[in-house]
């Protein structure tokens, strides 16, 4: 009987991993004043890259995903930072392009097959000693990206609050002219944030393939990129908050496992809608976005 709660926790951690990875990346970008809703498409394109390269090995799949994520984020960065275009609109366009491209390439490459091929998935990595504990021990055997998520959360927290670079990045999202007055280029911090964010988004997409499904399906990101954006607001723009937020969303998504395990008569589609509704509810309960970076979503004014 104790297997069911553990199963639910495991499902929670599993669902939280790709969302958390994308959300930690998005957090960095948003702290630098950039709202990138293109991560939905970036995630899907990365998932496709992962299935192509994953034929070699799961690690190659992860790396291909990261590259695809960086590439997508760089296109976004080019338009938003260099060409100073409106962020939400560029994000929508990049999302549509990347989603469409992953579908088109999937049809092109695997035209003769009924679906994308199966790839080997990453084996679970056991935490030494602790994973031998009865009960909870079985939760400490997760695939690599899950550990990367919590390590990334800790690194980003250290970077944002304990380094000069992190201070400048946060200042870019609050008052870019102050960064410029300090003799630094705010655009540089935005570029850096977006490249790292792209890498994490790519890792999130690759995780769906090489750590979870083992194959690619069209529109595989299924709104997870959008959820990651909501999770950043849910986490009050802090790394710890984002990790808690993604676990909360993961728990809401694992509702469907509870339903299956206990045979509760809730229609399947309602359990699919629940995580989004819960996220909205919590956002409202936390009183929305008044702690957002002051310049979030706005193009930096030209000097002078």
């Amino acid at each position, binding site marked *: 009987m104790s297997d069911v709660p553990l199963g639910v926790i495991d499902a929670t951690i599993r669902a939280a991993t790709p969302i958390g990875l994308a959300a930690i990346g998005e957090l960095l970008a948003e702290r630098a004043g950039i709202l990138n809703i293109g991560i939905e498409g970036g995630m899907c394109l990365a998932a496709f890259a992962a299935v192509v390269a994953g034929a070699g090995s799961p690690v190659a799949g992860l790396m291909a995903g990261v590259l695809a994520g960086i590439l997508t984020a760089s296109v976004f960065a080019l338009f938003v930072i260099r060409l100073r275009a*409106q962020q*939400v609109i560029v994000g929508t366009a990049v999302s549509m392009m990347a989603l469409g491209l992953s579908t*088109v390439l999937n049809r092109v490459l695997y035209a003769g097959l009924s679906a994308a091929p199966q790839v080997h998935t990453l084996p679970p990595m056991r935490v030494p000693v602790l994973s031998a504990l009865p009960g909870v021990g079985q939760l400490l055997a997760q695939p690599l990206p899950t550990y990367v998520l919590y390590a990334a959360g800790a690194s980003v927290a250290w970077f944002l609050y304990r380094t000069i670079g992190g201070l400048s990045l946060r200042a870019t999202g609050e008052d870019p002219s102050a960064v410029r007055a300090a003799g630094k280029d705010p655009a540089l911090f935005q570029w850096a944030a977006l490249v790292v964010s792209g890498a994490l988004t790519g890792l999130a997409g690759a995780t769906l393939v090489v750590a979870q499904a083992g194959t690619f399906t069209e529109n595989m990101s299924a709104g997870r990129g959008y959820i990651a954006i909501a999770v950043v607001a849910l986490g009050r723009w802090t790394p710890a908050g984002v990790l808690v937020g993604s676990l909360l969303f993961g728990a809401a998504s694992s509702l469907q496992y509870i339903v299956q395990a206990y045979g509760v008569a809730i229609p399947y589609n309602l359990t699919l809608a629940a995580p989004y509704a819960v996220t909205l509810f919590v*956002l409202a309960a936390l009183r*929305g976005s008044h702690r957002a970076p002051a310049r979030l979503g706005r193009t930096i004014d030209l000097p002078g």
Partner: protein
Amino acid sequence: MTRDTPRQAGLSVLMVLAALLVAAAILRSAGYDVTGAGIALWRGALGSSSAVISATLKRATPFLFLGLAVAVAFRAGVLNIGADGQFLAGGAAAVAAGLAMAGQPASVTIPTELAAGALGGAAWAAIAAWLRSRFEVAEVVSTLLLNMVAVNLVGFLVRGPMQEPTHAYPQSGILPHSARLPSLVAGEQLHWGFIAALCACAFAAWSFNGTAAGFRAKAVGLNPSAAESAGRISVARVRAIALITSGAIAGVAGFSEVTGVTYALYEGLSPGYGYMAIAVALLGALQPTGIVVAAVFFGALNAGADAAQRDAGIPAATASVIAGLVILGVVTTPELHRQFRRDS
């Protein structure tokens, strides 16, 4: 929207051509017969009067409504990314009304369906407006989440309370003839929703530039703090009204689609129309006349993509790649730059 307009129209056309060329290059490198696809695209979209009427203009209809819906919100500086969800809410409400009114004459049923669609879309957008005014939740986030909720709710409805009587398929019952929009040209698939959409655009053209409400929305979109302090306009109120109006128009798009094309509710009712509508609105420079041109272009693009898939095996998703490229092309034009520089 003054002397830059012809220059911008020229730029938009150039960007569309560039997007088509890029897409052709991608497909060619993937080994597709690009010439054959181009011919299929042309035939499917514009090759005959039947292609224009039954394919292009029929597919342009939701884009007319939805492009207008997005423009109404964007002009007031509200980033409504949720036209997709509002479209589904309107479609679901219209089908529910149409099925409930079986046996009534069309003169009663169709106006009721129209009202239900508008109310459904407005109510769905009102959630986001309420979350904004009461809880400070940004519209970008809430409308995106509400899209996901709407898709899954429709999935639930068509498998539960609204499933067709035999309970075999995930879709609603079929609307009776009295609950369908009549066709505009005998023997063709174009329906009266197209005319309604054109009327909506004409009405918008007048209200955007000729009414106090249109002016207030524009002032809020261009410079909210100036509108608040100098114009004594309640920015929060204008934004909420713009968002709910935008939702109502998107809901009417849902009404038009279910009563004019599908005659039933099902999960895949919107293959991302709400997101493509952002491209339509921007390509049309947030102006009704521009939106008409852009919507017909998107109708032709989708009709052509259907034909290219059928005849040359080109994945129809190519249309969304082209749409994305087109947005990137126009988003750097000076007019839009001015529109969105101040606030988002």
